[in-house]
């Protein structure tokens, strides 16, 4: 193994470790950064997987005896780089979406909720509802606080006569869209 390969391996390991550490932290932004480091680690691992060749082009000259050519010439494999490019694009999209979700959640829960309400909202997505402080409170409290069912808020609030509702909705700002939210600005 060349020095480059060793360095790359160490770098991948360090990035993996840092990413794992960050993902296990409590803050949401740390999780985002941890995922970003994870993707970098994996992209570099892919890069290293494609047999690092120094100073060799990814193309071969046109010659009659290809078998001999392949046996004698070194050439860089371009495929891992194509894979990495795809992976970078995908992870970029996912990270952008995650950042939007995190900032959206901060906007929704950060400012104007009392601690009790916040606990309810946070526990609504928790399968075991451990964060809600309800473990010792008995089954009734547990059942009461189960879900806020705010997913149906539109369904309950709206007139359901479809053509009218469609016409109304079309010109309204969608609640939850970024445009009408000054907390993000």
């Amino acid at each position: 193994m060349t020095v480059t390969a060793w360095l790359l391996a160490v770098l991948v390991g360090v990035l993996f470790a840092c990413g794992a550490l960050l993902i296990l932290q409590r803050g949401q932004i740390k999780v985002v950064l941890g995922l970003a480091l994870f993707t970098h680690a994996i992209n570099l691992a892919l890069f290293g997987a494609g047999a690092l060749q120094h100073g060799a082009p990814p193309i071969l000259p046109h010659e009659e005896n290809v078998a001999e050519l392949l046996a004698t010439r070194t050439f860089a494999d371009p495929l891992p780089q194509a894979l990495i490019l795809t992976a970078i694009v995908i992870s970029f999209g996912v990270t952008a979406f995650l950042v939007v979700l995190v900032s959206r959640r901060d906007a929704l829960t950060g400012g104007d909720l009392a601690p009790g309400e916040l606990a309810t909202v946070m526990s609504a997505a928790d399968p075991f509802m451990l964060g809600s402080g309800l473990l010792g409170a008995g089954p009734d409290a547990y059942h009461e606080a189960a879900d806020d069912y705010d997913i149906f808020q539109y369904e309950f609030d709206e007139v359901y006569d479809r053509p009218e509702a469609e016409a109304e909705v079309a010109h309204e700002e969608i609640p939850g869209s970024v445009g009408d939210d000054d907390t993000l600005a």
Partner: protein
Amino acid sequence: MTLSPNILALPVAIPLAFATLAIVALLLRPPFYVRVQRVLAAVAVVLNFLVALLVLAYTLSAGRLVLQVGTWPAPYGITVYADALTGIMLTSGGLLALLVMPYAMASLNPRRERLGYYPMALLLLMGMNGAFITGDLFNLYVFYEVLLMSSFVLLALGGTPSQINAAIRYLVLNIMGSMMLLLGAGLTYGMLGTLNMAQIAQRMTDAPSTVETLIAGLLLIAFAGKAAMFPFFFWLPSSYHTPHPAVTALFSGVLTKVGVYSLFRTFPLFFPNLLVAWQPLFFGMAALTMVIGVLGAFAQPTIRRLLSFHIISQIGYMLMGLGVALSPSPYGVGFGLALAILFVVHNQLVKTALLMGGGHIELETGTGKLSELGGLAATKPVRAAIFFVAAFALAGFPPTSGFVAKLGLLQATFATHNYWIAGVSLAVSVLTTMSMIRLWQYLFWGKPKRTYAPRPHLEQPSINFMLVTPAAILVTLSLLLGIFAQPVLQVAQVAAAQAIDRQGYINAVAPQELGPSLVQENTYAGSLPSEQGGELP
């Protein structure tokens, strides 16, 4: 009957084309954007289902379909592959997409329709179909990401706080899983020099066992995470109860089953030795998935939370079937896998029917808390009957498909002398029955615990019909699968036999080793294979 392999482009092309059109339709004027989108979505799911049926019929009668995209020979081009297992999964997934669509049209609010439910549902369908038909490991990763991205959007559609919370958890855990898949694909390329699944299978036989173990471990983590198996299931119960019921119904039949399909596809193909050697691991994961899923369900206070834990529990049975896939048994090799395939289809039908019924109740009453519901059997007898059949199909009562699938899995495990896992699955079946009885009692028996605000829009006959009929069709199919078990089982056995026939897969795809002839003809002689007017290899 001959069928051009080009038909395999359609399961991806149809949803993609219609999703694109539906996104463009969002720009239309107010009354039309929803209507045009609905028409587009309806046409897309119907076409997709018909294509899936065609693929299933062909693969069952005539064998495998292989499309080398752009006529580039494998492994240089992208291979698209379908056998009977693919056909079954395409058909059942397409059926669910077809049936969830009217349910969504009847129950979704105009706002959510405007936010893009239909395009995203179609892209989800595209990702699912692509993951089923691809014959290339990296392509599999890409289609997983398509599936995941559209499911993120569907999950967060509407943007309420609990949905956003759930979407973050779902996203982080699923991205970790697909990164493991990406790493597995990258290391496969680094160590075996190929990404074509047939060629991976070919070269894996000569690969050192460390390579095999590493790749198998990464793929197992990735697919088990996607399939919500122990210990990678935490994303599922923290998210499935938060989105709109139409989204949950779609997810329940589609997302986890793609992970299960990938396990069924890759493990017998790449790692036949490990499938035998790792049998204790598979059984351990299966047992813990089953037990923790069903025990988690007992603690849940709302309908969809409870049902999503049952999704996890049922995944364990499928993994159990995979564990005995290659064990010799009196019923023939692959019997366990055939039953596992049957179990996947059964579970897709029944679970979606249950979530449709439960979601309907939540929509109607505005709550899914078991402590606030009751007495629905008196007011909604038809829906109570549908829910009853679905619940007891899930528990495994005759004459439903659940009975056939569970009985067959038990036979497969007994015949291969794996008694303890059979015992665990029986105990879990009892617990599932208890949990279903508990759910049934809370929802349908007794007296209503409080009055609910009327929802006139849901009472309209047309809306009600669109909400109830899909679940009724699913439950009827479950009964039919149970009653006509013999032909159904034969179909599943054909699929399992094709799935474990490695040499058949390799011969069908026929990856060429890099040799002078190929390189000269295709790359260096200055003419592409398509220009030579050649037929598909």
